[in-house]
């Protein structure tokens, strides 16, 4: 590098008289995120100042109101055309406000509301010392079984911090699919990951497993995000910028004025390819695709079930949103490089998830593996590389998230002395004991299995159709086969619930409060509506299917 260049660098960097013009932020368009984050901060203050007795209610109030308001904002934005015609880049190019972003934010917010409901459930666990308790530790810091914990329980402490944590996570998730430069992407990733790590650790029952889940999730998550970050570094090195638009231009080779300092790195495709691969790997980790899936079963099993439900639904939505944007906005120029690779990933994910699930004996792990298989199905839609592909993925995510939250909410209901009875053998004859709950769960399982007239079928059909139109017929065939395999274990659970005699020492089905009931009911309703009359939502997803560049 020549001395003049160096000099110029110094001068530009340290020019005293150069004045920084204030960035202009479109607060309106960022309203959903801002509301949620703000509410999270408020939640922290609540923790600080509101007396313990009333915290629980205040937190619920704050969270629900915030999420509702944010959802209203999303709807308002979509209604005023930000999803389609007025779609654009906000916050100095950091955040995109377009169809996919708004659609996914809406889904995440609704999932968040249901999440709050399941978080706030206090009827399931037996009353401890006259206090109704939720599924979170009385005092996460205290060692399980220690005196301090007993005291905490006696005093009726509860970890109301989960609500602000949840809000922070949601805030991050809202940004994640909308992030329009790699830095924002990374920050959003961390913002929604860190609270989740914590939430995993604070289960009231089986805390050891809960903490183990948290550690695994945290270490592996951090490991993955390190890869992402390095990938970002390489892309930055390649394109000299982290903004999607610029990188895309560089990839397509449509840059007007090439900065001579960049000339040599731009030519270096190794940087580009390795960097892209590492970022994609980070996202695949979040969606739980094989071979980056190994955290999923353990974490899903160990985490408090409400958290699992929310995480399984919302994380997938956010991560796939980000993945879509990355592949459709930044790397379309590279599709011939990444498409075959992604196909491979999709295939092993579909098959791997389905096959390993066959022999699972724990309902939460079973659902974890099924979520892996579903990640594979969604990837099939992602690979289509057509507008149909985008909208089909959006639809699938919406359908899937409600089914998931509902299913895990049902899991929280089936309990025995040791808390939730997650071992499959204990579910035997559930259909005899309480037909309704079993029937509802059966509906969810059938939706997972993709039986017609459930949202699962509509979604599966949409993505497979997109994939076939996108010329990935092979994926469709594999998908169909793995669906057949997957059907086997969903059916197994149904058999267990309905056709096997109930055990005398079998679990009881707790009667939940209206909160969980709402979550479950909404889940069923959405499952059936999206199954029978999906057109309206398909239209929605269809309109939302275009990324702003």
């Amino acid at each position, binding site marked *: 590098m020549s001395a003049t260049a160096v000099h110029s660098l110094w001068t530009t960097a340290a020019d005293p008289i150069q004045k920084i013009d204030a960035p202009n932020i479109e607060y309106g368009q960022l309203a959903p995120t801002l509301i949620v984050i703000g509410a999270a901060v408020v939640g922290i203050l609540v923790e600080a100042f509101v007396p313990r007795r009333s915290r629980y209610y205040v937190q619920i109030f704050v969270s629900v109101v915030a999420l509702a308001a944010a959802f209203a904002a999303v709807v308002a934005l979509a209604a005023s055309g930000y999803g389609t015609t007025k779609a654009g880049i906000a916050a100095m190019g950091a955040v995109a406000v377009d169809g996919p972003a708004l659609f996914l934010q809406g889904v995440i917010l609704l999932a968040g509301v249901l999440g709050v409901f399941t978080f706030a459930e206090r009827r399931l666990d037996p009353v401890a010392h006259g206090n109704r308790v939720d599924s979170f530790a009385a005092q996460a810091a205290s060692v399980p079984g220690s005196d301090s914990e007993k005291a905490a329980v006696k005093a009726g402490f509860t970890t109301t911090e989960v609500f602000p944590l949840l809000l922070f996570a949601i805030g991050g998730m809202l940004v994640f699919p909308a992030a329009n430069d790699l830095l924002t992407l990374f920050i959003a990733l961390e913002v929604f990951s860190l609270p989740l790590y914590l939430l995993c650790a604070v289960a009231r029952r089986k805390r050891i497993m809960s903490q183990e889940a948290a550690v695994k999730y945290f270490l592996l998550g951090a490991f993955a995000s390190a890869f992402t970050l390095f990938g970002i570094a390489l892309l930055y090195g390649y394109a000299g910028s982290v903004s999607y638009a610029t990188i895309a231009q560089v990839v397509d080779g449509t840059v007007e004025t090439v900065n001579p300092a960049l000339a040599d790195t731009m030519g270096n495709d190794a940087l580009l390819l390795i960097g892209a691969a590492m970022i994609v790997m980070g996202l695949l980790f979040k969606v739980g695709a094989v071979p980056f899936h190994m955290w999923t079963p353990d974490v899903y099993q160990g985490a408090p079930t409400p958290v699992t439900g929310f995480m399984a639904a919302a994380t997938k939505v956010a991560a796939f949103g980000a993945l879509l944007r990355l592949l459709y906005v930044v790397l379309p120029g590279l599709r011939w490089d990444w498409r075959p690779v992604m196909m491979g990933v999709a295939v092993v994910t579909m098959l791997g998830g389905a096959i390993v699930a066959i022999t699972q004996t724990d309902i939460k792990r079973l659902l974890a593996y099924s979520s892996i298989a579903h990640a594979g199905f969604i990837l099939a839609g992602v690979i289509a590389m057509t507008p149909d592909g985008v*909208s089909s993925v959006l639809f699938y995510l919406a359908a899937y998230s409600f089914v998931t939250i509902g299913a895990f909410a049902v899991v929280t209901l089936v309990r025995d002395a040791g808390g939730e009875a997650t071992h499959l053998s204990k579910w035997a004859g559930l259909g*005899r*004991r*309480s*037909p309704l709950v079993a029937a509802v769960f059966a509906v969810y399982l*059938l939706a997972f*299995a993709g*039986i*017609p*007239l459930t949202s699962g*079928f*509509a979604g599966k*059909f*949409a993505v*497979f*159709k997109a994939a*076939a*139109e996108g010329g990935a*017929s092979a994926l*469709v*065939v594999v998908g*169909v*086969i793995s*669906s*057949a395999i997957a*059907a*086997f274990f969903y*059916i*197994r659970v149904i*058999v267990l619930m*309905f*056709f*096997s*005699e109930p055990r005398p020492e079998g679990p009881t089905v707790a009667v939940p409060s209206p909160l969980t009931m709402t979550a479950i009911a909404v889940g069923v309703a959405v499952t059936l509506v999206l199954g029978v*009359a*999906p*057109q309206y939502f*398909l*239209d929605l997803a*269809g309109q939302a299917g275009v990324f702003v560049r």
Partner: protein
Amino acid sequence: MSFPLLTATAALPAIGAIATAAVPAARRTAAKWLALLVSLATLALAVVVLVRFDPDGDRYQLTESHAWIKDFGVRYELGVDGIAVALIALTALLIPFVILAGWHDADPLETHSSRWRPTQGFFALILGVEAMVIISFEATDVFLFYIFFEAMLIPMYFLIGGFGDRAHAGSDEHAAAQRSYAAVKFLLYNLAGGLIMLAAVIGLYVVAGNFSLQEIAEARANGSLDMATNTERWLFLGFFFAFAVKAPLWPLHTWLPNAMGEATAPVAVLITAVVDKVGTFAMLRFCLQLFPEASKWATPAILVLALISIIYGALLAVGQRDIKRLVAYASISHFGFIIMGIFAMTSQGQSGATLYMVNHGISTAALMLVAGFLITRRGSRLIADYGGVQKVAPVLAGTFLIGSLATLSLPGLAPFVSEFLVLIGTFARYPVIGIIATFGIVLAALYTLVLYQRTMTGPVKPEVSAMPDLKVRELAVVAPLIALLIFLGVYPKPLTDIVNPAVKQTMSDVHKKDPKPEVEAAK
């Protein structure tokens, strides 16, 4: 906008199912009567359809068409041709008998808790199946058809697995295991078939851009939509596989004996007489119309498989020890005939196949239901446990004999007409296959008469010595079926008049003409 007759015919049992399921646990009998009345009302509607249908009119009549899922190119399109009308009538006709025959099959045992309501569930599920079967006969939109073709598995699955035959050897646990094995097998086979069909359905959409049977068929006919030969063949195979599992065709048949063996007799009838017909019907309507060329390409292979089914099923029926499994294998043999008739690509063959679907439905229902009555009396499905029943319960034995004779397609009973048509239709194009298939007649005589001899004749076994003869309810189930068998055997014209035009259409779809008799050909 005229009254949506077809929708009503399908919706009525669906609503009835929900209503039946909602009947409180204590009001068991009320649920039964409700179900029976609904099924009768459905029958009435089906009769109206039959009357309103004009054999000489358009191909699809009473059509309804509404937008449904635009993005998937799916419309809610209903319409019936002669074949569909006949099968809808059959379905609507059989269900009341199924319900009546299963009157006590789902009465709860003491062990069940009060909240478990098997009776309501049983009859609700039967009605649900009826609704789905009827609508899949009516659907002229491939996707719509597919949805119900798949969805009907779920209620069937619960019927098989949830309400097994209480007459079983061994412990309850063992029986339960057997049952759920049968149910799972049924579901997985059909689900696998359905999913492979799903791939083909998607493929069809990619090729054709919509799912309307009429549009695609027309486009295929006038050449405006031409598929690459291989594409067409793959799609055809995708569809055919699902239908062959449902039908069932050798070697995809093994789920049927388990299912029919473990299910209660009425449910077994539901499976083989009603649900499986959707498979053969779909071959006739979808495979031939959508993929005429591929159908012709696959014909030889399919005929051979059908032939194997005929002989193989019959031989295995001879080898069975369990009455219901025997009937199941007999059905496999008969489905072989139906499929052979469809793919013989002659008017006689296809008319015969269609009649065969109806007649086989009635005859199997008669035989299986009587067998069910017999089994519930003795509490065993093993042929060896019976003997000399004819002495103590002559009416039961008599009806059983007539059922058997219908199964071996004795002239004068309905099945003969259809079986002979199928044979002659096949023979006209494929003499060798036709001749080998006639061995099926002899084997049919073998397994039915052996069954009759072992169970009904000979010295009276002590266990059956106190066996009561048919009750009024049971007679009310069997007598009409037998009357129908005789009527359709002597005067099938009403049925053929409805079926013939549709068959002529199908023949023209596949661009096939009947082979001319040698004498005329010579001229």
